[in-house]
């Protein structure tokens, strides 16, 4: 039995009677297997938080149904609340309570004790344990995140919902956080995690790419990239900003996006000879030190390509 089953979920927000309701989620369906790290990847406003709130029984969808651990999110919300762990996007612990007090509090309201499940959180909690007398509000971003994760885990949930756990966190803490998730996966906990950082998609077992309330693709990160379908060229030259303008105004170019020190270019006429064509065109336009390379698409390439397809629809 899958851990999470989402079927045709639609969620709307009505602001006033006059205005059109805002559609946060549009006919979303997916399944998450037990013990999987499932990523919901998309920018702010894509509907990630709405989806998490529906699955954690905090919101009710207008249409569709969903189950978590076999329980219906509307009817059996009480059972779900017994067995899931939830870490909202905003830091949601008591700032005026100490690290230890927060952890004990959450253990108690979930009918358990810190001792009982210490082995599960040991890896994470031991890093902040030296500061256990410190008020949660006085912790650094990375430590707050670790405490929040410890609190969400303290009752040994079967499904863990992490809503943008790495937003606003620096690259080092992000890396550490994903290493912690990998270890939790070993414990058999199903993890649903949302993120606006495309590069984190590759750290999930499977991902759903979400934009404007719609899922554009669900698959293993590699499979999504393999489905990119077109040849992708990394282009570089002197005067980079000029190159961007030149390529964007060239009618042969299908898309051109900056990527780190390169531009990722897809041509309308998909052909192996593209490299030469691009080189010649840029050279003709006066650019030098031109480098062109055929590369594999990454999740961000795929995401942008999918956004483009969605817009065309």
């Amino acid at each position, binding site marked *: 039995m899958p851990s999470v089953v989402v079927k045709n979920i639609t969620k709307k927000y009505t602001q006033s009677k006059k205005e059109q309701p805002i559609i946060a989620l549009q006919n979303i369906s997916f399944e998450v297997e037990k013990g999987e790290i499932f990523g919901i990847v998309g*920018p702010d406003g894509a509907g990630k938080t709405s989806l998490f709130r529906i699955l954690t029984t905090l919101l009710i969808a207008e249409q569709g149904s969903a189950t978590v651990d076999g329980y219906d999110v509307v009817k059996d919300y009480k059972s779900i609340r017994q067995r899931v762990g939830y870490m909202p996007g905003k830091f949601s612990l008591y700032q005026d309570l100490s690290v230890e007090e927060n952890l004990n509090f959450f253990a108690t309201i979930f009918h358990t004790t810190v001792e009982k499940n210490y082995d599960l959180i040991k890896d994470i909690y031991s890093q902040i344990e030296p500061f256990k007398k410190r008020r949660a509000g006085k912790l650094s971003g990375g430590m707050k995140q670790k405490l929040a994760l410890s609190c969400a885990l303290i009752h040994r949930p079967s499904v863990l919902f992490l809503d943008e756990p790495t937003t606003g966190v*620096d*690259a080092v803490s992000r890396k550490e956080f994903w290493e912690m998730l990998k270890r939790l996966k070993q414990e058999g906990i199903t993890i649903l995690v949302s993120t606006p950082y495309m590069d984190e998609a590759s750290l999930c077992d499977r991902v759903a790419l979400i934009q404007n309330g719609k899922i554009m693709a669900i698959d293993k990160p590699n499979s999504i990239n393999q489905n990119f379908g077109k040849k992708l060229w990394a282009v570089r030259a002197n005067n980079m900003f000029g190159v961007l303008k030149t390529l964007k105004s060239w009618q042969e170019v299908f898309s051109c996006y900056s990527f*780190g*020190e390169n531009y990722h270019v897809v041509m309308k006429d998909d052909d192996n000879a593209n490299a030469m064509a691009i080189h010649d065109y840029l050279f003709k336009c006066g650019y030098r030190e031109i480098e062109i390379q055929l590369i594999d698409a990454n999740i961000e390439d795929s995401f942008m390509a999918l*956004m483009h397809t969605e817009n065309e629809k």
Partner: protein
Amino acid sequence: MKNEPVIVVEKLTKQFGNFIAVDGISFEVNKGEIFGFLGANGAGKTTAMRMLCGLSIPTSGKAKVAGFDIYQQTENIKKNIGYMSQKFSLYEDLTVKENINFYAGIYGLNENQIKDKINYLVHHLHLQHQQNTLVKALPLGWKQKLAFSVAIVHDPAIVFLDEPTGGVDPVTRREFWEMIYDASEKGITIFVTTHYMDEAEYCNRVSIMVDGRIEALDSPKKLKQNFECVSMDEVFLKLARKATRSE
């Protein structure tokens, strides 16, 4: 672009009690340059940026922003810089037009200039149909683009961008950077912080702060060479892992 520094910082230090948030940093930023200001959370970025914006008086050291001293001439600095952050920039309960009007007004543009600016920006950002829409109804990416335009509405010498693209979709994020390039071509200096390491590659030069000090400062290309890394992400991790303190 070279040899025309608009930000000159010398041994700038800020101390809170025993805690040295910014520890004697020195650097120069040239006119029209896109300067990436990176660092882990708590490395001292925000404190440094506040001092440069004239919002916080340093403990010691010297700095000039747009030719003005950050101790004495903070009012002049504020007139000559723009500021935009992920968290605050626009009034959500005002319309697009009202926001431009307001910011242009507080920077002392006259009525005709304001009118021209509104026309220009609305067309430039393709907001013709949304000019009377409340800002809160705009998608995040559009908001950020509008916020940036508003931050440079008075053609400042420097614009400070504090994580301007957090949570923005990848396409809009790139469109945002194109706007940054445009501004830089016009001679506006860009001082930007970000958590997206690919964006660090878009900067002319990047500084990486660790524990209140600048550990590295160079073009992305040179940094990668010097630290023998293939990406800025690696460079950053290599340096930031040395940090002994956090926020």
